[in-house]
């Protein structure tokens, strides 16, 4: 893997920003500028998923995007990943326009992304072997990762032999082993039960703190967003939603996720952000009710 690690220079860069703001565009891990995405509907009309999205993620930062149902959260993430082209606007990663898939990024999907016909270790080492790393080397790196996520005794199992939490861990190892500079996560833990979910969130934070990678994390759960992030971005009600607010989360790290919900800082931030999000959520709800009324 010849992915460079710009994270080491984050501090230099933060020092330079006041003196050389012109370098801006080359340094954001993810930068969406004026991104709009529309889809044709079966009825021949145009459906705007998101409109005029501006999002800047500095390397090493954990940014969550929260929005009501149908606010185009996944659309934004897919544009950042290069899996979806914006209809208008530009997507850049470390200053380079994203053409095809974003080579600097890994993606963690909401659904199960493991290849069912490959064993755990073959799944985890896939990114390396496809990049031309020798099998022996890829396997030893994969073993290291499996140990990290607590699955070293499950290397030869097939995904269907694992629990949901174990599959998620395998997916984490699979996404991190290629050492991406950006991690795009689309509600990765939403399918897990509450306890497993908290454990996974804790493990994710630990991994991330050691790594200094940029994370864009999609969730509809405001608690989760505040607990994990440096910044929470709120999307408006869809369709054609856009960013309606951005909040700095300055709760000191390392954070203990099991107790954080009682932290007074957490409570205050939650109240403030929920105040804004609530408006969008009720708009979405009213639209849905109105549509239901139309149908009835």
């Amino acid at each position, binding site marked *: 893997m010849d992915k460079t690690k710009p994270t080491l220079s984050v501090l230099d860069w933060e020092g330079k920003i006041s003196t050389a703001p012109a370098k801006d565009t080359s340094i954001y891990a993810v930068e969406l500028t004026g991104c709009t995405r529309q889809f044709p509907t079966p009825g021949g009309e145009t459906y705007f998923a998101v409109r005029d999205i501006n999002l800047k993620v500095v390397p090493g930062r954990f940014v969550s995007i929260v929005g009501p149902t149908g606010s185009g959260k996944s659309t934004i993430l897919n544009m950042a*990943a290069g*899996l979806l082209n914006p209809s208008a606007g530009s997507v850049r990663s470390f200053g380079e326009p994203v053409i095809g*898939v*974003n*080579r600097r*990024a*890994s*993606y963690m*999907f909401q*659904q*199960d*992304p493991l*290849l*069912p*016909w*490959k*064993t755990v270790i073959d799944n985890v080492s*896939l*990114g390396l072997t*496809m*990049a031309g790393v020798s099998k022996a080397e890829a396997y030893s790196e994969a073993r290291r990762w499996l140990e990290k996520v607590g699955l070293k005794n499950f290397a030869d199992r*097939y995904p*269907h032999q694992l629990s949901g939490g174990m599959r998620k861990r395998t997916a984490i190892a*699979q*996404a991190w082993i*290629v050492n991406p500079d950006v991690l795009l996560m689309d509600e990765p833990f939403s399918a897990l039960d509450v306890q497993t979910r908290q454990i996974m969130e804790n493990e994710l934070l630990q991994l991330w703190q050691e790594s200094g990678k940029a994370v864009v994390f999609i969730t509809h759960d405001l608690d989760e967003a505040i607990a994990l992030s440096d910044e929470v971005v709120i999307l408006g009600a869809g369709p054609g939603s856009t960013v309606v607010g951005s909040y700095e989360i300055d709760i000191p790290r390392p954070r203990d996720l099991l107790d954080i919900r009682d932290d007074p800082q957490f409570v205050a931030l939650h109240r403030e952000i929920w105040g804004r999000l609530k408006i969008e959520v009720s708009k979405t709800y009213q639209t849905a009710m109105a549509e239901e009324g139309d149908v009835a």
Partner: protein
Amino acid sequence: MSPLAMRSTQLLLTIAVLGAWELSVRAGIVDEFFFPLPSDILQTVWVWVSSGFVFPHLWVTMQEAILAFLVGAAVGLLLGFVLARVRFLERLLDPFLQMFNALPRVVLAPIFLLWFGLGIWSKVAFGFTLVFFIVFFNTLEGVKSVDRVLVDNARMLGASEKQLLRHVFIPSALTWIFSSLHISVGFAITGAVVGEYLGASAGVGYAIAQAQGVFDTQGVFAGMFILMIVVLIIDLLVNRLERHLLRWRPVQSS
């Protein structure tokens, strides 16, 4: 019911049916000309096998079936993958493929006899038309129905188009292809035998047609019996191959 008890019951059922057949022929209820005694059929089978008479015929039939299967599966796989990946070609060729698939294949046998002669190639061509469509449609469906997330994930992990094919599309399509493998192997043999029956100089189908020509019903039944056993053995082998290649699949509890 335990597996052993089930097997014994199945054996009893076989004996009962064959015994009833044997007795009703001996009692004169059923005409022996149309339904020869099971014991006589088995004896004919034994004569065919012990004298070695049937083996050259079996070998010819197997050659035809194997060639028809290999060529049909290879072309079906290739075209299936290409059409699944290139939307334009799929839309272009779809009506033609549907047309040929709608054609009852037996009507092709006479024309193949004219084109390819009495030898094995007319049967291979005939078996090909049967195998090809099954493998083709299953491959097409298999590749098209691959989980979007698996493809996106592999692409994010850096897969090239070739690697996508190797790690995602082919294994995924294999499940579909294997579910049709039993049918396509059966069709390859059907193609060979029917082709031989309609015109040939060797093969089990030819042997059956010869026996029929001299009103030797024992021979017809003996040929059927031998084919049945051979197809059963092949099906068993296919099962083992399938179990090996699809070992990653969760075991379905019955």
